[in-house]
């Protein structure tokens, strides 16, 4: 005989792994469910003895095992040495004496009635990829959608997501960057008007409902466990996901055992591509939805640009390029590898046009400036790689200053070029790589774009 309980607790906790002391519910209700066996307590940090009196730690929330990401201190609460995980610290500290809880009781049931309100039609390429993805999902195998920038990747996901939802399954779309989530949220809410959708990112408040479709930054998946029947990772090659093993583990932990993780990107790493060929399926789209080729980068030397900018002088070629854009009233983005250099260049650009602004990840007016560029209130922006993906501005022209810098790897350069010519009205545009010497990455990016345009693909 089970006692009645607050179903909101089940809906909230199911699939999550949460700090016992930080649930949005009264302690007594949680305690009662613990006694009834509906909630299970897990230790925050698992420590095992290792050689030389050292200890190996594992964070049970984010599954971090890197010994440099743990700190041990003398805890006043458990009155002894206590270890905490610095990897997921910002989500509330997990230490040896912290208790995590998971839901073990009956599972919530998700509705099977979902409308798809999206009115567009898929191109034959998109349709094929979409069908192949559904087939992989049926086999519970991972799938990679490798599709060039501007080929309409999100739309490809609509039919498979709709199918999963009508089967009462729970689905997650994860992306490394919050910008991507913010861009996806309104599109998915419009496409699935009857579905309970939740968007999770740093600073967002979780709803207390059982959301069947969850949009989340990959960081937020630290807090999920065996929750989803499928996770779609958008922009799988973006920082910090591609360089952070714990984020990759978090995604694997968030799906139910045996359920697949799918990937969507224009620039898969060689590793992901070969892995997916071995263990999953790959769909490739090498044409933009409007059928025009990808803009090919043009290499222009800009010798000693860094020294010149630091001395307070913009290289003439850069001035000419900018003035040209202004004269033609074309919006532009100029990418820099370093915030400091960009901020030194900003006043020099403002001598050409005082409305030119710069943005970077923690810039307070980042969103406003990008919006102003869209509204044509600003003629152009200087930016770090933060705008390399996910942004669409009709007729935008792009230049990279210092394309030889390490941060501009092949993937980043292809993504940056992918900003150009996205709309059917302006399918071409400038894609200039100003450099202080040509790198392999620049050559490889150009070679891959050429190959894609000829109809070939990287294999």
């Amino acid at each position, binding site marked *: 005989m089970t006692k009645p309980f607050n179903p909101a607790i089940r809906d909230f906790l199911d699939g999550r792994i949460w700090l016992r002391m930080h649930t949005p519910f009264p302690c007594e209700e949680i305690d009662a469910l613990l006694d009834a066996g509906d909630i299970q307590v897990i230790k925050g940090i698992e420590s095992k003895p290792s050689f030389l009196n050292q200890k190996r730690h594992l964070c049970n929330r984010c599954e971090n095992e890197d010994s440099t990401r743990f*700190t041990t201190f003398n805890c*006043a609460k458990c009155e002894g040495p206590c270890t905490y995980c610095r990897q997921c610290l910002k989500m509330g500290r997990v230490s040896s004496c912290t208790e995590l809880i998971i839901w073990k009781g009956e599972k919530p049931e998700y509705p099977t009635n979902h409308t798809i309100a999206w009115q567009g039609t898929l191109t034959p390429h998109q349709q094929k990829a979409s069908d192949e993805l559904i087939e992989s999902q049926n086999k519970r195998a991972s799938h990679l959608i490798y599709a060039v920038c501007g080929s309409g990747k999100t739309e490809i996901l609509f039919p498979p997501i709709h199918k999963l939802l009508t089967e009462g399954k729970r689905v997650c779309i994860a992306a490394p960057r919050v910008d991507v989530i913010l861009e996806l949220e309104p599109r998915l809410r419009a496409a699935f008007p009857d579905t309970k959708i939740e968007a999770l990112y740093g600073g967002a408040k979780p709803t207390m409902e059982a959301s069947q479709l969850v949009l989340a930054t990959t960081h937020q998946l630290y807090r999920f466990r065996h929750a989803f029947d499928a996770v779609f990772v958008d922009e799988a090659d973006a920082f910090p996901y591609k360089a952070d093993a714990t984020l990759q583990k978090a995604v694997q932990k968030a799906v139910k055992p045996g359920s697949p993780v799918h990937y969507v990107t224009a620039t898969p790493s060689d590793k992901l591509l070969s892995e997916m060929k071995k263990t999953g399926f790959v769909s490739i789209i090498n044409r933009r939805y409007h059928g025009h080729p990808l803009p090919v980068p043009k290499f222009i030397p800009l010798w000693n640009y860094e020294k010149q900018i630091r001395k307070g002088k913009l290289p003439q070629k850069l001035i000419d390029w900018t003035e040209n854009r202004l004269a033609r009233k074309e919006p532009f983005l100029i990418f820099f590898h370093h915030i400091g250099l960009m901020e030194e260049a900003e006043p020099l650009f403002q001598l050409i046009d005082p409305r030119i602004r710069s943005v970077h990840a923690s810039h307070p007016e980042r969103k406003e400036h990008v919006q102003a560029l869209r509204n044509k209130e600003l003629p152009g922006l200087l930016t770090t790689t933060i705008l390399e993906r996910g942004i669409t501005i009709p007729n935008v022209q792009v230049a990279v200053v210092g394309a030889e810098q390490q941060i501009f790897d092949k993937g980043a350069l292809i993504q940056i070029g992918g900003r150009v010519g996205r709309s059917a009205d302006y399918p071409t545009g400038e894609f200039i790589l100003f450099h202080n010497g040509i790198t392999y990455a620049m050559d490889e990016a150009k070679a891959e774009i050429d190959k894609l345009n000829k109809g070939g693909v990287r294999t």
Partner: protein
Amino acid sequence: MNCLLCEQKLASSPSWQLLLAIENTSLICEDCSKSFERVDIKEEDDVVDQVTSIYTYNEPMREYLHQFKFLQDVALAGVFANELRTELARKDDIIVPIPMHPQKKIERTFAHVEEMLTAARIPFEDLLIKKNTEVMGEKTREERLAMRNLFSIKPGSDVKNKTYILIDDIYTTGTTLRHAATVLKEAGAERVEAVTLIRAER
């Protein structure tokens, strides 16, 4: 080793100070370290004979304190170890950290001021007891001034006719320091100074 604040890789440059362990290895990168703004002010007060504060309460410092105290990132206790040691490199004055209420300490799992001193390898004496659990940051100036003394001397401790230096993380109105100095002086301290990491405007 990565910077404890921004997770950038640390470039370590060997020096003789490091070799002789006069200085601790820096835990944060140069950029983060530059983002903190020094004030180095000495102020006089009617009860506390001198208050020295090292940094302003700017945005990076606010974030640091938030991560250290509220996100409970004990690893950050050593970030200002070198600066504190330079400031406290004095002969035989007795260092006394402002304590937390025992209940609060259990909630936070550590006493932040003591952790900072321990990380800087500065010896200190635990002379004070905090009597209530009230939080300064939640009070108005009037409320602070009207409070009864927050501290008492730990039973059995011996306060000498010497100079004591109180240590706290942040100096705002000075109520905490004045209360602590008053009980020390009533117990026989000759002079009470204070060093705080941060000077906040109120």
